[in-house]
């Protein structure tokens, strides 16, 4: 049903759309694989680009972040960890209310000074999204008047969605799946392949 980009040569309409938005807003780059339009924005021009883009895509869908880091204490790591540069990626999705198109704006923050301008001046709804990103990743949104934790209790230490933050529930209880069938009493051959 969705128009998959079948061959690289035939220009997929989403690619043109993404390129169009990128140079209209003076963004750095754009791509559109898997039907998701992605526009990369410079960090210092984040607030102006989003406000500019809202003229065309007014609907503020959501704002969140990704933590790219090598030492993943939780879940599977990155595909090729050696050439991954550790960074945060803040993403904000805007979409239009007439047709189906929309775009996700990305910007990268380095791990040590993770702070970025806040959108709450023009978008009222962004406050909660930013508060959530702040408490989950530790990204600081200067300009957001009340950056108090949204979900977590006030005295909560640490930012849970970081890859380095352990999932305690999984540490406390041993995994029932890694119990093996013991070998025959006299022959101590290895249990079947787990």
């Amino acid at each position, binding site marked *: 049903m969705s128009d998959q980009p079948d061959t690289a040569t035939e220009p997929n309409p989403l690619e043109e759309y993404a390129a169009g938005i990128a140079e209209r807003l003076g963004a750095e780059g754009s791509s559109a694989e898997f039907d998701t339009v992605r526009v990369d924005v410079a960090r210092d021009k984040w607030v102006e680009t989003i406000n500019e883009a809202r003229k065309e895509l007014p609907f503020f869908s959501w704002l969140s972040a990704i933590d790219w880091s090598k030492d993943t204490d939780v879940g599977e790591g990155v595909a090729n960890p050696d050439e991954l540069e550790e960074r945060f990626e803040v993403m904000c999705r805007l979409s239009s209310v007439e047709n189906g198109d929309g775009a996700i704006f990305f910007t990268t923050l380095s791990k040590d000074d993770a702070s970025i301008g806040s959108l709450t001046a023009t978008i009222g709804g962004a406050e909660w999204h930013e508060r959530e990103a702040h408490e989950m990743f530790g990204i600081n949104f200067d300009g957001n008047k009340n950056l108090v934790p949204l979900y977590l209790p006030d005295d909560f230490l640490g930012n849970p969605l970081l890859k380095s933050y352990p999932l305690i529930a999984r540490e406390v209880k041993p995994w*029932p*799946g890694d119990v093996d069938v*013991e070998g025959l009493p006299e022959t101590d051959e290895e249990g*079947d392949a*787990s």
Partner: protein
Amino acid sequence: MSKDISFPFLGLFKGMGLTFKTMIKKAPVTMYPQEQEIPVPRARGVISLDTEACTVCMLCARECPDWCIYIEGHKEAQVPDKPGGRVKTKSELDRFDIDYSLCMYCGICVEVCPFDALFWSPEYEYSEPKIADLLHNKEKLGEWLETVPEPPALES
């Protein structure tokens, strides 16, 4: 009259007519302890275990998202069918517990079991005063086996 209370009050009395009609009709209520509703054949009530079919392959315990299946087994040498043939080992099930206080009835274990050992049965009356009793052992799971219904006929 302020704008938000519209006039005349016909709507109110139509509503009263409906409640009066419902009062006269018989209430569609099944009195639970006496009359019991027969659940739909595919209803996911409880998981039943066929201990012969289980070959202790641990797949269900690994796939379970809630980690609520606990299995222990051991290997046993089996008499070779041909004299002098290779001694085959068969793994025997010692313990197969499902902790229904953790289970979220998702059915991944039933689906992932390659040897048809786990089945859904629509039985729902197994609540316990103590939560520890919700840990059903191998025999209890076996008991549920005969309550497993035939799957329903399919739409043409």
